[in-house]
């Protein structure tokens, strides 16, 4: 253990932390924006588009993230038409490749989270919306989507933490985010323990803060949904001896 390694390299680690944070927040925002329309298309089973999106989410949810990153970073360089096109400006840049991979990956998971929430919306509440003269558009924008987004908070919070952890894979394509910075220190000082432990603590603190924020969101937006009351009953609540 040699804490001076950490202390001497605080700027490097902070840079890494910064890269991690904006890589994941940007992919989360972009992924969220992609996921909502995709989930609606899945929910409404729009012909063709539904199958294509199903294929997309299936691929990104069933292959390892690191392969997805390699495919986007190295794979696209194999095709000369890509190398010769304007896309190359984007794809040759490791950061942007990482961003694209993370965005598509989180979009895939988030699409399925939202789709599931939309599909399990209580029919009662839609019935009331329609009975009061709302158009389908109104019923969705005012009732179904707001309600479904609230019910998506718990699985979505898992997705956010999952993506944070996955971001360490970005170091595999030379992005020096938090884990990448620790790996650099390891190779420089031949001490794996100190930098990796320090960085683990940083992840731990971020996850702790995220968990706290999501708990607050749940309390603010979810706690009073009756469905949630039912599903959060503990075994002890049933009077089982």
């Amino acid at each position, binding site marked *: 253990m040699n804490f001076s390694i950490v202390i001497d390299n605080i700027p490097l680690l902070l840079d890494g932390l910064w890269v991690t944070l904006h890589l994941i927040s940007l992919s989360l925002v972009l992924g969220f924006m992609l996921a909502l329309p995709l989930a609606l298309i899945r929910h409404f089973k729009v012909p063709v588009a539904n199958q294509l999106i199903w294929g997309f989410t299936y691929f990104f949810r069933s292959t390892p993230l690191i392969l997805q990153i390699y495919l986007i970073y190295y794979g696209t360089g194999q095709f000369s038409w890509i190398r010769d096109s304007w896309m190359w400006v984007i794809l040759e840049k490791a950061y942007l490749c990482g961003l694209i991979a993370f965005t598509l990956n989180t979009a895939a998971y988030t699409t399925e989270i939202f789709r599931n929430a939309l599909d399990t919306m209580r029919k*009662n509440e839609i*019935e009331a919306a*329609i009975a009061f*003269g709302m158009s389908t558009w109104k019923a969705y924008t*005012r009732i179904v989507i707001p309600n479904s987004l*609230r019910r998506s908070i718990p699985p979505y919070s898992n997705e956010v933490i999952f993506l944070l952890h996955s971001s360490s894979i970005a170091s595999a394509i030379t992005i020096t985010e938090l884990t990448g910075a620790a790996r650099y220190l390891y190779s420089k000082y031949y001490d794996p323990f100190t930098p990796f432990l320090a960085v683990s603590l940083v992840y731990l603190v971020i996850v702790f803060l995220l968990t706290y924020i999501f708990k607050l969101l749940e309390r603010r*937006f979810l706690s009073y*949904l009756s469905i949630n009351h039912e599903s959060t009953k503990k075994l002890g609540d049933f009077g089982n001896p």
Partner: protein
Amino acid sequence: MTEYTLQAKNLKKRFASHEVLKDVSIKAKKGDVISILGASGSGKSTLLKCTNLLQYPNGGELYFHNEQIKFKLKNGLMVPVDNKQVLRIRSKLSMVFQQFNLWTHMTILENVMEAPVHVLKINKKDALERAHTYLDKVGILEKKDAYPAQLSGGQQQRVGIARALAMEPDILLFDEPTSALDPELVNEVLLVMRKLANEGRTMLVVTHEMNFAKEVSNYVIFLHNGLIEEEGNPQKLFNHPNSAKLNQFLNVMNKS
């Protein structure tokens, strides 16, 4: 020509091969309180839902203030031609549901303001005033900032009634409004409904509350096997039923 707030002629409705409504006609003038009785599964909810087109019928005619709703037949189903007409008419028929069907992510106040603001497009200030008026009328104003899940069934149903009233509809449709309630909560809802009837509101009430039907409504319809088995004024129907089926139904209801 008499003006009927709502009139349905020869309604037919089937689910697959199951004929739920075979040929049912009803009409409600302004101020009518019509009770609809019938055993469970006799098609009472389906009848109500055909009148506001939550269900599309398979045959028949529908009129609202003598204005005919335009349909085209599509695979045996009567599909409305004019979507705007349907939305407009639905906004004037307010429904109160058996399971309340409140919007769970909104407060009580938001529930009551929602449709006036977003369907009728009245401004927020007026909608707020309306919401206060009707929440007060059903005696639940003090719960305006609570969420539906925080209320008892009786309270939720009173909110359901306030939400319906806030549309200032021409007719109120009640689908077994007290059937999902614990017995001790039934009365608070029935009291509100009696008050509304006394104000002269037009109401179509599917109910198993025989006293309500007998004392409050001016017309009673008994549905059986997809047909109106017997209908008429409550005194006659309850005291001297013609049909053996109605007699039997009343005996069962009186025992429970």
